[in-house]
């Protein structure tokens, strides 16, 4: 029967076990993943199974890394996302978290744009580190993503987005992620991009401040090709701060909406 082992085609014996394949190909592997799920040596393999053999602590070569990074993905997902180009406008609490989630998923090309630099007050919810204080966020985030998955291409644009440059920066993105802080900037970005590219999807965030219940944050289709993640109403305001848990919930709603769009699924609630 035919299987793949670390993304390479391989002919196995009928009813061969995962442990037997490991012993023949990579005897020092201490982790076996079959079809995205950890398996034991006794697991009996079937035709078309995808087997990944991992030796913990060993830094794999560049060719092998792509397959190993995505070993826990649902099979087929990596193939579907690695050719994608996604734009992220703003890399604060939402955008930095979304970028990292999409990079871990293996999205091939991220275009990130933000004018800001890392400040200590960002560290309560944004994906930056103390040693990055003072760096432009887009460069700090590009460095972090390279440490996670060097095969993700990151185009970092250190500038303030406005109606005159949005088309140039995001002209090649299949899907645009809105991840700004200010409401008027969210509106500016959406109406500018939608007017120029009415057939492309926008995934936006609105309403994730405070520590209200996580379950009030939802993904909704609010207009043609516009998906909104958040509770829709809880603004950042004096007395209502922005904190990692709820901002992270909304950010991962947005990242999952992007993934579902790339996989041809509707992002919003299925009724």
């Amino acid at each position, binding site marked *: 029967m035919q299987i793949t082992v670390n993304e390479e085609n391989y002919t196995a014996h009928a009813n061969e076990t995962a442990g037997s394949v490991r012993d023949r190909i990579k005897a020092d592997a201490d982790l076996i993943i079959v079809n995205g799920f950890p398996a034991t040596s006794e697991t009996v393999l079937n035709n078309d199974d995808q087997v990944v053999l991992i030796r913990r602590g060993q830094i794999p070569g560049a060719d092998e890394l792509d397959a190993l990074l995505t070993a826990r993905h649902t099979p087929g997902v990596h193939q579907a996302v690695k050719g994608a180009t996604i734009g992220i406008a*703003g890399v*604060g*609490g*939402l*955008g930095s978290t979304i970028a990292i989630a999409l990079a871990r998923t293996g999205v091939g090309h991220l275009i990130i744009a933000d004018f800001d630099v890392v400040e200590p007050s960002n560290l309560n919810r944004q994906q930056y580190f103390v040693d990055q204080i003072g760096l432009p966020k887009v460069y700090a985030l590009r460095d972090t993503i390279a440490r996670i998955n060097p095969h993700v291409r990151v185009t970092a644009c250190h500038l303030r987005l406005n109606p005159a440059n949005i088309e140039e920066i995001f002209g090649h993105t299949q899907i645009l992620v809105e*991840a*700004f*802080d*200010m*409401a*008027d900037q*969210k*509106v500016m970005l*959406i*109406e*500018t991009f*939608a*007017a120029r590219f*009415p057939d492309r999807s926008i995934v*936006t*965030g*609105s*309403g*994730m*401040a405070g520590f209200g219940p996580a379950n009030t944050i939802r993904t909704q289709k*609010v*207009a*043609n090709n*516009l998906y*909104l993640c958040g509770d*829709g*109403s*809880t*603004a*950042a*305001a004096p007395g209502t701060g*922005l904190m990692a848990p709820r*901002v992270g919930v909304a950010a991962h709603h947005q990242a999952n909406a992007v993934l579902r769009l790339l996989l041809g699924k509707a992002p919003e609630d299925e009724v």
Partner: protein
Amino acid sequence: MEITFNGKPRELKTGTSIQELLDQLSLDCMQVVVEHNRNIITRQRLAETPLNDGDTLEVIHFVGGG
């Protein structure tokens, strides 16, 4: 005339522009995205775009935070 406003029927005076409707509802055009007959329109066009009988209008309000 009658339009569909955020999914519900709404009676309006004939010739009302989108901007006039937003003003009547005290909605700040800087914080809303407006979709008119399935197309998102820019804020510069709100005043010059009249609503017609049977139109569909979705107004999505945004709050700050991110």
